[in-house]
Every structure is written in C-alpha cells, then in structure tokens.
C-alpha cells in the first residue's frame, strides 16, 4: 500500500514539471547567457586591451561609418561609427532592468490591489474592481505618455537636476520603472482577486479566522503564499510586455535619453536611417533580433512556469 515516491512539497513538484518543459529550459539558459554577456562585456573591454576597447566601446566614435557586419564589428557600425554589437549589449542593461523592475512594481501593486479587493469583498471590492474596469477601457498609451512627458518636465526643472545634470538620465529610468509598472498591474489584480475569492472560503482560512486571526495576518500568512505560483507566472509574462512597452516608448523618444540606449532607441535610430539609396539593414535587424529572442525566451519561460504551477487547472 505504501507509496514508494518521497513526499514532495508543491514547490518541488513544480520544479520537476518545469524541468520537463524543454523550451522553458532552453530559454532559461539563453537568458542566463545573455545576462552573463551583458555583465561581462564591460570587463572584456577593459581586459582585452586598448585596441579592442577602441573598436568596441559603445560610445567610441570612429570613421568607419555604416560599415556592414564584419570580423571587427560583428553587428556593423552606425552613423557615428559606433559598434552596434556593444550598443546592443549596453542597451540590454536598460531594457532588462526596466523589464524586471517594472514587472516587480506591477506585481506589488497588482497583488496588493487584488488581494485587498478579493479579501475585503462587498462594496470595497466592487469599487476597486470597477476602477480597474474603467482603466481597462482607457487607452493606456495616453496615460503613460501624459505621465512620462509631464513628470519628465518636472524632473528636468527640479533642483536636483539643476544642480547635477548627470542625474537626469537616471531619474528618467526610475520614472520608466514606476510609469510602466503603474499601467501594467490590471491583469495581475484581476487574477489575484479571483484566486483570493476562492481561497478565503477554504477550510484552513476559515479555521484561522475562527481562531481570531486578524485580516492582515491571514493575508500575509495564508493568502499571499498561496498565490505565489500564479504571481510568479504572470511576473514572467508581464516582463516581456514591459520590455516591449519600454522599447516602444524609447522609440518615441520618451524613454531613456542619449547617450544611454535601449533596444527601442537603437531600432529607432535605424529607422531614421531608412533611405531609398542605401540599405542599412543591420541597424534594425540586430537590435530587433536580440529584442525578439529575449521576448520569445521570456514567453517560453512563462509558459513553462504556468505548466509547472498548473495555473490553469486550479479552481
């Protein structure tokens, strides 16, 4: 009668299922490699000597304008003779950072909003979720742009930036985190609320309430841990959406400002060089390809997590 298999915690079971999802594993390796490359590239530039650094430093101007991909410049060079490969790797820092932090911001807002609405119920729930409905039917793009342009102006004229102008670029990145997180939490809030609604009637939560536990204790102790799987899955799926949004905003010129670059600004620079006489395809194709593969990998990762935590089949 005895079961030969050892008892596994839900997290261990999820890990087992995740390992069987081959695209997700390949994606995880791809992302890890990309991250390593992004982190190690500055070190390479320093270690491999001045000649190498002179060729590849992302802000190093040179006479080799618009040279197509070759042995020295793997992704070619741009208008100012800068190495596109280096620029893509430096752009990755911004794009990935905004993706991760923006998704975390949306996670925090979404989980708190959904958990509070679902747990409190009643009129609070109704008001909070109608608010989400209304935000859903506003074009988010308007919201983001108005927020970013006006707060961008505020940053520009604030006394911090007036005293040290170098700060402006960094503050704009922080603004992107907050702005993108602030518009990407709606789906998360809806899903979390649905989960909390079903969780709060479960026996172990009722038992805890019967024992006199306070709502914030129940939320922190029982509800939040139980929506961890779903939250982590949607975190992985929100990340590509936010990276995409950031590159779109940077493409519009609302994101990071030069000389900082993200994948969006790199593609945008390539687009400005479109002309009927000469075709500089590498300016768009390489940043675009790295962007697309990252989004693809994150989506596969999200799929793998969804299968691992069995999100769909839960009540």
């Amino acid at each position: 009668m005895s079961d030969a298999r050892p008892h596994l915690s839900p997290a261990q079971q999820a890990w087992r299922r995740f390992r069987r999802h081959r695209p997700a594993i390949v994606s995880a390796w791809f992302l890890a490699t990309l991250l390593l490359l992004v982190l190690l590239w500055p070190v390479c530039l320093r270690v491999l000597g001045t000649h190498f650094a002179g060729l590849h430093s992302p802000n190093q101007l040179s006479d080799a304008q618009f040279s197509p991909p070759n042995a020295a410049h793997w992704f070619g060079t741009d208008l100012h003779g800068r190495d596109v490969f280096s620029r893509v790797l430096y752009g990755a820092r911004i794009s990935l950072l905004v993706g991760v932090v923006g998704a975390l911001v949306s996670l925090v807002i979404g989980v708190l909003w959904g958990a509070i609405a679902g747990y409190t119920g009643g009129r609070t729930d109704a008001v909070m979720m109608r608010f989400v409905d209304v935000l859903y039917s506003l074009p988010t793009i308007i919201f983001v742009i108005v927020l970013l342009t006006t707060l961008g102006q505020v940053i520009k004229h604030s006394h911090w930036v007036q005293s040290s102008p170098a700060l402006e670029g960094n503050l704009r990145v922080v603004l992107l985190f907050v702005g993108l997180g602030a518009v990407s939490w709606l789906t998360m809030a809806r899903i979390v609320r649905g989960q909390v609604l079903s969780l709060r009637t479960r026996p172990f939560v009722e038992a805890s309430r019967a024992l006199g536990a306070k709502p914030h204790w129940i939320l922190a102790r029982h509800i939040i841990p139980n929506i961890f799987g779903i939250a982590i899955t949607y975190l992985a799926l929100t990340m590509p959406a936010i990276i995409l949004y950031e590159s779109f905003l940077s493409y519009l010129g609302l994101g990071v400002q030069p000389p900082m670059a993200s994948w969006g600004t790199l593609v945008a620079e390539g687009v400005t060089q479109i002309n009927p006489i000469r075709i500089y395809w590498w300016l768009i194709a390489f940043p675009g390809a790295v962007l697309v593969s990252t989004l693809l990998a994150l989506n596969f990762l999200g799929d793998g997590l969804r299968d691992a935590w069995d999100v769909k089949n839960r009540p």
Partner: protein
Amino acid sequence: MYFVRRILFAVPLLLVISLLAFMLVKAMPGGPFDRERAHASPEVERNLRAAYHLDEPGWKQYLRYLGLLWERSPDGSLHHVSGGLLNGDFGKSTKYRNHTVNDIIAQGLPVSLLLGAVAFGFAMGLGLPIGFWTAAKRGRWEDYIGSFFTILVVCIPAFVIAPMLILGFALKWRLLPVGLWETPWHVILPSAGLGMMFVGKIARIFREGMLQAAQSEFVTAARAKGLSEYALLLRHAVRIGVLPVVSYAGPMLADLLTGSFVIESIFQIPGIGVFLVNSSLNLDAPLIVGLALLYAMLLIVLNLAVDFAYTLLDPRVKYE
C-alpha cells in the same frame, strides 16, 4: 433586455472615462501652450488661455466641454452655452488651432479604419487557418513548427517588422510602394506590418480553443459515431473553439481601428494613431479626451457585438 441595460450602462462609463482623461490632463503641471516654438508674450498667452476658457475653474471647463453649462447673460436670464459633447461637438484642439477635434477625427478616422480593417482581415485570414491546422495536427511536427511560428510572430513588435518590410519589399526588391496613401497597393505593407502580431495571437487562441472544445462530450459522441478527425473539428468543435477568438477579436479590433502610431508614422499615413500620441505629448486636452472617448465607444460597441455573437454561436449561452 440584457443588451439594452448594457447600452444604458455605457453612458455613465463614458462620462467617467471623459472625466478621468480630463482630470488627468488638468492635474499635470504645465499647460498646452508651454511648448510653442517661440514662447508667447504674457499678453498673447493670456488671450489664448481666455479663448480656450483655460482661465476658468476646472469644473466649469468640464461642464462646458460636456455642453451642460448655463451662463447668465447681461440681462440676467440664463442661457445654454452652445456646443459641447452632448451636441456631438468635441471642441477645439489647443495645438492644431485651425482644426476642431471633429475635423481631425473626420479626416484621420477613415484612413485608420481602412488600415485597421485590412489588418484585421489579414490577422484572421492567416491566423484562423494556422490555428486550425496546428490544432488538427496537435503533438506532431507540423504543430511544433506552426506553434513556434505563431509565438515568434507574437514577439515581433511592429516597429521592428515594419522597417524590415520596407527595407525588403519596398527598397530592395521594389515590389510594393510605400510613403503615400493612394492606391490599394499602398495598403498592403502597412496592414501586414500592423496585423502580423495578431496573426500569431489569433492562431494561438484558436488552437487553444479548439483543443478545449475537442475534449467536450458532444465531440466525443461525434467521434464515437465514427467521424474523421477533420470532419469532427470542422463540423462540431469549430463553433465552440472559435468563441475565445471572438471575445479576443472585440478589443483587438478596437485597437486596430483607432490606428497605430508606429505604423502610421513609419509609413507616413495620415491616420489618427499619430494624433493619439501627439495629443498626449502636447497636453491637448480636447483632442486627448475626444480620442479616448472614441476608443472607449468602439470598445463598448465591439464588446457588445462579441456578446451578441456568442448567443449566435453557442446555443447554451443566454443573457438574463
């Protein structure tokens, strides 16, 4: 009855949306005339602000915008201020000063509608067959290849695919024209660039829906009757399997029809997608609110159409 109530509910929703968009713009520091190329003299700016009633308190501006403002004439009698949203007047743009918002919408919307409709047709025409095919061949190599293609396409943003289409089809091979909006040939590349991502989304949603429908009991019953797999899917599963596609198609069509900034600016098309972004950049309140309302109205109508289509497709669905 259900649909009547839904339509009635749309009115307060639109009011809330207009109020939110209005408040959002007003809450932001700075005004619509801060970014003029040459800064206006205080005198001129005061006159401009007065002409657009920006010197009034916010609530009064909003009531004037709605067309619910009554003012006292010099002789003491109340009279209704003409214009306003309730009379179908979206007001004047604060940036494009020779144009009313109605003008801008009337000029740009037909272009965006055409572009969006063709892109929608492209997404459906390619997405549905791919979705059906991958569902029918589930678990086989055709499914893996098709599914990889669809997820890949979902991950390619419009601002990457559109320039590549221009470089390839217009500049390198010189097959299709770009940069104008005259012949039907000019419509092909922009709508392909716009619809490409949705091909993948539609195909993925349709595949999922078909697989779910294929597990329901009436399909098992039909299989027991000895129907072939294709006939089974085509005759029985499709009606249910297409439902998720229908509910996704509503919001998607609203997105497509209100234009795309990226596609319109890369291909230099005079649609309203460009105005959606530019109005937000310029803090052009009447234009922002007008376009937000247009989008919301489209969304509400299309979601209603989705629900109506449900009752036609699935006899089990009934709205109280």
